[in-house]
């Protein structure tokens, strides 16, 4: 009985190890662009630390399927299983976000905060812009990436038209203010989600 019990634990430990290794194996590839722990220092490449799990899963599936167009991400996701996508999404959703604090432009920051309130970004992305469910974390995201994504939505270059409609009429200097404010806002720590 004792042996059997031990055997069972060993089996469980192996299973846990295998499933972790299974997802961890691709983590170095992810962080080579998205940065240590998923905090990106690469222009044009988003931070994926602390992103909601469902948001990550959806985007990785859409990249794999070629529905969300990316010449970088689609080839990388070719042949990846749903299980691996879930494991990777889970891993990065639990990493803490490092917020860029330098080069703060107080005037731009205040204007962005005011615009985010006016546009009601917090209704879906939550009041601290941590994101939820299928909606991404905006707080602490790279400034350049936030701006380029908002521009892409406005040009109707994303599969989902919800954000295109939400951003309708927002001018480019307003996008710059929003991106500056959001990139310098702190989301809640991963552990408190």
């Amino acid at each position: 009985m004792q042996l059997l019990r031990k055997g069972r634990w060993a089996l469980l430990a192996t299973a846990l190890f295998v499933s972790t290794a299974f997802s961890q194996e691709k983590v170095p590839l992810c962080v080579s662009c998205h940065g240590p722990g998923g905090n990106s220092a690469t222009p044009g490449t988003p931070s994926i630390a602390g992103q909601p799990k469902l948001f990550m899963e959806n985007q990785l599936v859409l990249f794999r399927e070629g529905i969300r167009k990316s010449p970088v991400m689609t080839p990388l996701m070719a042949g990846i299983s749903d299980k691996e996508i879930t494991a990777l999404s889970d891993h990065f959703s639990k990493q803490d976000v490092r917020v860029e604090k330098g080069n703060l432009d107080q005037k731009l920051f205040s204007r962005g905060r005011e615009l985010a309130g006016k546009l009601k970004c917090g209704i879906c992305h939550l009041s601290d812009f941590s994101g939820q469910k299928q909606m991404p974390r905006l707080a602490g995201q790279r400034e350049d990436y936030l701006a380029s994504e908002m521009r892409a939505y406005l040009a109707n270059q994303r599969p989902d038209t919800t954000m295109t409609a939400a951003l309708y009429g927002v001018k480019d200097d307003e996008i710059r203010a929003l991106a500056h404010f959001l990139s310098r806002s702190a989301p809640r720590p991963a552990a408190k989600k």
Partner: protein
Amino acid sequence: MKSLVALAAAAAFTASFAAYGQAKPPPAWHQGKSAKQADSKLAPHPGKMTETPAGEIPISKLKLPRGFKAEVWATGMPGARAMAASEDGKKVYLGTRVIGRVYEVTDNGSSRSVRVLVDKLTQPSGVAMNKGNLYVFAIDKVLRFDNVASNPGAQPVDMTKAFDLPPEQHHNWKYIAFGPDGKLYVPFGAPCNICEPPSKEYAQIRRYNADGSGKEVIATGVRNSVGFDWHPKTKELWFTDHGRDWAGDKGFEDELNRVTKVGANYGFPYCHNNSTPDPDVKKAKACEGVTKPAALMGPHSAVMGIKFYTGKMFPAEYQNTAFVVRKGSWNREKPSGFDMVNVRVSSDGKATIRPFASGWQEGGEGYKFWGRPAYVQQMPDGALLVSDEQLGAIYRISYQKPAAAKK
């Protein structure tokens, strides 16, 4: 090249709106919110795009009338919606929306296998079989796979040009079906929550010959129909229609409609339900000449698939009654729908609703659902298949006469 395509798409999009002088992007789900509702947190529920194994589906929570049984029949089809089956029921094809795939499920007797028949399409939710040929309708594409069940490598015939599809995406994901007249019926939803459609080609149901010729508008004023079937005796078309959002928990209700006259008007956007004018889009005599619904199906309940039952398995009382699936609300504080109801219809077009399958949503107040039923398909043995869009699964509902109670 990619950016060129994107630029062209953006230009086409801008042009399509400039054409009718409305400098706005496609109005999305939150269009029509009143100032009072600006801070509402209600929003469409997120879908799940990854596979759900059978073991993670709490099928025992489904409640059915005595003698009926539900089992998980197939899994591994994220986003599964409408179904079309081969004549022998051995192959079932499923359309999807965002994930862009059409699945083929093969029944091997004791188990099912799944493969992706075609992918990378824009919301290919419409699937229908006609003489062994599978039709697939995406937003911007129509494909036909000839003799698909016996020819697994069938290359699709591109039929897009024959069907004259309008450019807007919103509410233009399709349900399609062939009628008893051999024609293909296709809905074109209003590209908004509530608006005067940008052009005449929206908010209507059309029918075509199987090759796309002979286009005819058979119903107008239809906001967003994603399910229909024909009464087995009268051969009349019955269609489900989603009511407008952002008009409160009580309204407007989704509808079940009957078509008795080609070209009849069902009211959108001016008139809803039993002759109630719209509070936002107004005109004089808003409800004049508008055909009333056969039945109101509940506010925001998201009424989807409908199938008149003609099988031999279920008790005789179900013969020629309709099973109607309600995927469940989002634009409502208190959930509605998340079930499948049975609708009895009379020859004068009256319809009465009674519960049939429920339990996808647990509890009455908050949103605590584990699945969202979408479509119903009758199989050759008389069992029903019900697709679950949330979990990418098909359930089989069968009937066995309960043993007589012991005296």
